[in-house]
């Protein structure tokens, strides 16, 4: 096979929708060469890559109703409308934790989980996947979350991408824990190093701002497990604002919250929610989405949709061809 450009394979790119993020996974070119690569990856990874898009939503905090946002679930409901109006229907929506606001009354918390399910079920997407935040699973070790949604850590494959839901909250501390890291190690072992991997979790897996509890104490151990893999994207929530971070082969992206925003920690020492603006109630809240412009590049755009600020920008890319070229598979 003749030499193939690294950029001619496949990429995952993301854009902020202001109420979350949209990601698109697609081959840059659909041609005979890529077809051969896809067949090879399908054989190697168990599923042939195919274009698709997915959305990340985060920190809906159903049940919260206070000064930083007296509108409760309105931004969440707006986000559902935004996703349902996307021109290309996403294959799945990932929720990166704090689906609900905690309550010590199990019945109250259970009712909040049901309300979350009721609102999220309005999404016109085939798949919805959730990982807990500390407000969902920090007080009871994840018991109620498991009863409502199933396991707190799990993985699944979708069109050539391996998705991993990683719980870093239910031990009450910001940690994944040795048992779950062992599970992760086993989970990824069967994949080739070129497999695109998307980890979705709640807290950042690196020390973003430890004094604001924006870290995972054993996040570096998790990233060590993933370090041999060339195409790793980590999506998380918790910090209620956008943030991008790149380290080794991994790119980390935070989604905005759907309840209230935190300030830039570089601008203030106080972790205090940004005040509610009744004239712009959804300002600083958001969605993430992904798309590609047909020339192999993710586009950077900004969109306004009613009162929801939508900003679209590149998030990440994945180019598995590099690994295959290094391994000599394609020669």
């Amino acid at each position, binding site marked *: 096979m003749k030499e193939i450009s690294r950029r001619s394979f496949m990429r995952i790119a993301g854009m902020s929708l202001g109420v979350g993020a949209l990601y698109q996974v697609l081959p840059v070119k659909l041609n005979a060469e890529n077809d051969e690569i896809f067949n090879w990856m399908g054989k190697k990874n168990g599923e042939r890559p195919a274009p698709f898009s997915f959305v990340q939503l985060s920190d809906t905090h159903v049940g919260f109703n206070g000064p930083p946002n007296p509108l409760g679930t309105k931004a969440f409901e707006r986000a559902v409308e935004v996703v349902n109006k996307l021109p290309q229907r996403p294959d799945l929506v990932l929720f990166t934790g704090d689906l609900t*606001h905690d309550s010590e009354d199990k019945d109250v918390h259970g009712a909040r989980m049901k309300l979350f399910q009721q609102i999220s079920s309005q999404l016109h997407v085939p798949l919805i996947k959730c990982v807990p935040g*500390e407000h969902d699973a920090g*007080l009871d070790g994840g018991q109620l979350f498991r009863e409502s949604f199933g396991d707190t850590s799990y993985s699944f494959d979708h069109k050539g991408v391996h998705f991993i839901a990683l719980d870093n909250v239910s031990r*009450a*501390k910001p940690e994944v824990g040795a048992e779950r890291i062992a599970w992760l190690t086993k989970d990824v072992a069967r994949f080739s190093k070129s497999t695109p991997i998307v980890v979705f979790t709640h807290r950042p897996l690196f020390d973003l701002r430890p004094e604001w*509890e924006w870290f995972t104490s054993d996040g570096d151990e998790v990233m060590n497990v993933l370090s041999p893999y060339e195409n790793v994207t980590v999506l998380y929530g918790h910090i209620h604002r956008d943030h991008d971070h790149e380290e080794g082969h991994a790119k980390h992206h935070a989604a905005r919250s759907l309840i209230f925003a935190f300030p830039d920690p570089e601008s203030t020492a106080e972790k205090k929610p940004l005040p509610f603006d009744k004239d712009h109630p959804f300002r600083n809240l958001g969605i993430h989405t992904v798309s590609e412009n047909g020339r192999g590049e993710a586009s950077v755009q900004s969109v306004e949709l009613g009162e929801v600020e939508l900003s679209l920008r590149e998030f990440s890319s994945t180019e598995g061809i590099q690994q295959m070229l290094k391994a000599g598979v394609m020669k």
Partner: protein
Amino acid sequence: MKPKNFLMIPMLLLSGLALQFPIHLRAQESKVIEITAKRFAFTPNEITLKKGETVKLRVVSEDVVHGLYLKPLKIDADIQPGKTTEITVTPQTVGKFTAICDHFCGVNHGNMKMTIAVEE
């Protein structure tokens, strides 16, 4: 002090109960600072340490499990209710640090913190 107390000290040291004794009886030991954790605050919420001087933080929870976490000073402890958690610290860096409760303890957990200042 009564003579019998002097006899008791070695016994208590051996049984690991020396910390029950007042600080003045352990003049050669580290300075001790008592801290109480209760949702959603530490009391006191600000302490001052000296660089290079070893101190013992004795932390008690009055309600649920809390945490005390401050990476730059290598503080990472779970504070179980009903027992005293002792943390030995020898700060090497001057500055003002924020220690947090890193064990989720309820709705205002995110605001449970204290300041630890380290002076020359």
